[in-house]
C-alpha cells in the first residue's frame, strides 16, 4: 500500500490535533462516529471570519455584513451542490434538523398517519417521532433488525401500508451497516410515503446524491464531516419544502410583524429564526472544500480495508464484533469482550492515547435487539492509518494479556 501510505501521512498533517500527546502517547483518535477532528483549513476559516469579517448577516448595508452574508449563504449553496439538494435549511445539527422535520413538516402533513422507523435508528431519529406521536396519536412502526444485522425488508414492506413517512438511518452509527435506502425510497414512494434519511454517518463517508436517490428530507451534522460544532442542516426537496410550516419564530424568518400577526419569508430563512450560525457555516463550507480535495471513494475503500482488518483481528482475539463491513458500510467497528467491561477497556486504551467510545451510542433499541447494553466502538476516518489500526490492536492485545 505505498500510495495509501503517502496519502495517509499527508492527510494527518492537515489535522493539528494529531500532533497532540494523550497521557504521554501519540493520540490515536478512533471516536470519529461521535465527532471528527478539524483540518487547519476549517479552523483557519473561522479564525479568518472572526478576525476580518465578523458581522451579523442579512438586511445590512455595510461591508462586513455583506461579507458575512456572502459567507453564510455560500455554505448553503455549497451544501446544495455537494448533496444535489433543492433546499437547505441550516440548523444546529442532525438532531435539530429532525426535530424541525417533525414540527415543520410532520405536524401539519402527517395528520395522524403511521410513521415507519427502524430499530437501527439513533435516538435523534426516534424521540422526535415519539413526541410527535404522543401529541397526534400516530402509530410508530419499527422495522426489525435481523440477526445478520440488516433491516428486515419483508417486515418493512409489510409495514409501509398507509404510512405517511419513513425515517431511516442511511448508515448505522453502531454497526456501520449502510441500509438499502434506494429500495426503501422506491417502496415508500410507491405507497405514497415520504422518506427522511438520517445521514449523520452516511454523509461523512460517501457522496450522497439526494436528487438521484429521490429522498424527500435528509438530516446531517457538520461536526461529523470535519466541520465545526453547532451546525447541521435539513436538506429538503422542493415539494416537501412547500409543505413545511414555520417552526421557531423570531428575527430573520419574518417578512412583517404587526401586533395582529406576522408573515414569513418564503425561502429557507423561513426556518432559520434568529441570528444564524455564521462562523460555523463558514467553517463547514471550508470542510466541504477540504473533503472535495480528497478522493472520497478511494478513502472509503482504504478505511473499509482497515475496518475489516481490525474486525478480523478482534474476532481472532475472542471478541464479538457487531458489524458486516460490506462494501458500502462505513468503517465502524463495534465489539465486546466476553468478560472485560467495555468501559474498563476504553479507560485502559485511553491510558495509551487511544480514543474509542463505549456505551449505547444513543441507539438503545438496537442494542436491546442485540441483547447487549453497550459496545466498544472504534471508528475510522480519513486521517486514520493502517498504522493507527495496528497500534490500536497491539494495545488491545496488551490489555487482554494484562487484564482479561
Amino acid at each position, binding site marked *: 500500500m505505498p500510495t495509501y501510505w503517502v496519502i495517509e501521512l499527508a492527510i494527518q498533517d492537515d489535522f493539528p490535533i494529531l500532533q497532540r500527546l494523550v*497521557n*504521554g502517547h501519540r493520540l490515536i483518535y478512533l471516536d470519529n462516529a461521535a465527532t471528527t477532528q478539524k483540518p487547519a483549513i476549517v479552523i483557519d476559516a473561522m479564525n479568518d471570519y472572526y478576525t476580518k469579517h465578523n458581522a451579523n448577516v442579512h438586511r445590512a448595508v455595510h461591508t462586513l455584513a455583506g461579507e458575512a452574508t456572502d459567507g453564510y449563504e455560500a455554505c448553503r449553496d455549497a451544501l446544495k451542490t455537494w448533496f444535489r439538494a433543492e433546499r437547505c435549511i441550516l440548523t444546529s445539527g442532525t438532531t435539530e434538523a429532525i426535530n424541525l422535520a417533525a414540527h415543520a413538516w410532520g405536524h401539519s402533513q402527517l395528520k395522524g398517519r403511521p410513521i415507519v422507523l427502524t430499530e437501527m435508528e439513533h435516538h435523534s431519529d426516534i424521540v422526535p417521532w415519539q413526541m410527535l406521536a404522543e401529541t397526534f396519536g400516530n402509530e410508530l412502526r419499527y422495522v426489525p433488525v435481523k440477526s445478520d444485522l440488516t433491516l428486515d425488508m419483508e417486515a418493512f414492506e409489510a409495514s409501509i401500508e398507509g404510512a405517511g413517512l419513513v425515517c431511516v438511518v442511511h448508515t448505522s452509527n453502531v454497526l456501520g451497516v449502510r441500509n438499502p435506502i434506494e429500495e426503501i425510497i422506491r417502496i415508500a414512494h410507491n405507497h405514497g410515503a415520504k422518506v427522511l434519511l438520517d445521514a449523520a454517518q452516511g454523509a461523512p463517508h460517501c457522496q450522497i446524491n439526494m436528487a438521484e436517490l429521490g429522498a424527500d428530507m435528509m438530516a446531517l451534522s457538520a461536526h461529523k464531516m470535519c466541520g465545526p460544532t453547532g451546525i447541521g442542516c435539513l436538506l429538503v426537496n422542493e415539494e416537501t419544502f412547500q409543505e413545511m410550516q414555520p417552526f421557531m419564530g423570531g428575527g430573520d424568518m419574518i417578512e412583517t410583524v404587526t401586533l395582529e400577526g406576522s408573515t414569513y419569508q418564503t425561502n429557507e430563512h423561513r426556518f432559520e429564526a434568529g441570528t444564524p450560525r455564521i462562523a460555523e457555516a463558514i467553517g463547514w463550507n471550508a470542510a466541504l472544500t477540504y473533503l472535495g480535495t480528497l478522493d472520497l471513494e478511494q478513502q472509503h475503500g482504504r478505511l473499509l480495508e482497515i475496518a475489516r482488518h481490525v474486525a478480523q483481528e478482534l474476532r481472532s482475539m475472542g471478541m464479538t464484533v457487531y458489524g458486516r463491513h460490506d462494501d458500502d458500510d462505513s468503517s465502524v467497528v463495534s465489539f465486546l469482550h466476553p468478560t*472485560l*467491561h467495555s*468501559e*474498563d477497556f476504553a*479507560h*485502559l486504551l*485511553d*491510558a*495509551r492515547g487511544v480514543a474509542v467510545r463505549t*456505551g449505547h451510542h444513543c441507539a438503545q433499541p438496537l442494542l436491546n435487539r442485540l441483547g447487549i447494553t453497550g459496545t466498544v466502538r472504534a471508528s475510522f476516518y480519513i486521517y486514520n492509518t493502517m498504522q493507527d489500526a495496528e497500534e490500536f490492536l497491539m494495545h488491545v492485545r496488551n490489555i487482554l494479556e*494484562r*487484564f482479561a
Partner: protein
Amino acid sequence: MTYPQKLAELVDDFQSIDDRMERLEYVFDLASEVNELPNDEWTDSTRIHGCQSEAHVRVDIEDENVRLYSGADSKLVQGLMGILTIAIDGQPIEIARTLTPEFAVEMGVLNSLSPSRSNGFRNMFDKVMSTLMEEE
C-alpha cells in the same frame, strides 16, 4: 488530613506510579479487596446512581464498626470500591465519618478516570457517607 495507616500507604503507593496504565492496573488489582456483595443482593437500594456500569454497595455497622459490601460489573469500578473498602471498612464509625474524597484526588486516581467515572466515585462515596450520617 492524616489517614488511617493502610490508606496512607495506598496513597503513597499510587503517588509513586507515573504510568497511567499501571495506576489503572493497580486499581484493577484492588477489586479483590471488596467484601463481595453477591449479585442476587443487588437491588435498587444498593445501586449507585450516576455510574454507567452497574455498581452496588451496602453499608452495615457491626460492633460500631463500618462494614462495606460491594460489587460492580466493571472491574475498575470495583477497584475504586476496593480503595474505599481499604479506607473505611472495619473503621469505627466516627473515624469513617471524617473521611473526605480528597484522598482519591491525592492518589491521582480520579484524574486517571473520565469525568463520568470520577463522578461515579463521588456518588459512591456520597452514598456511603450519607448512610453513615444517618446512623445514630
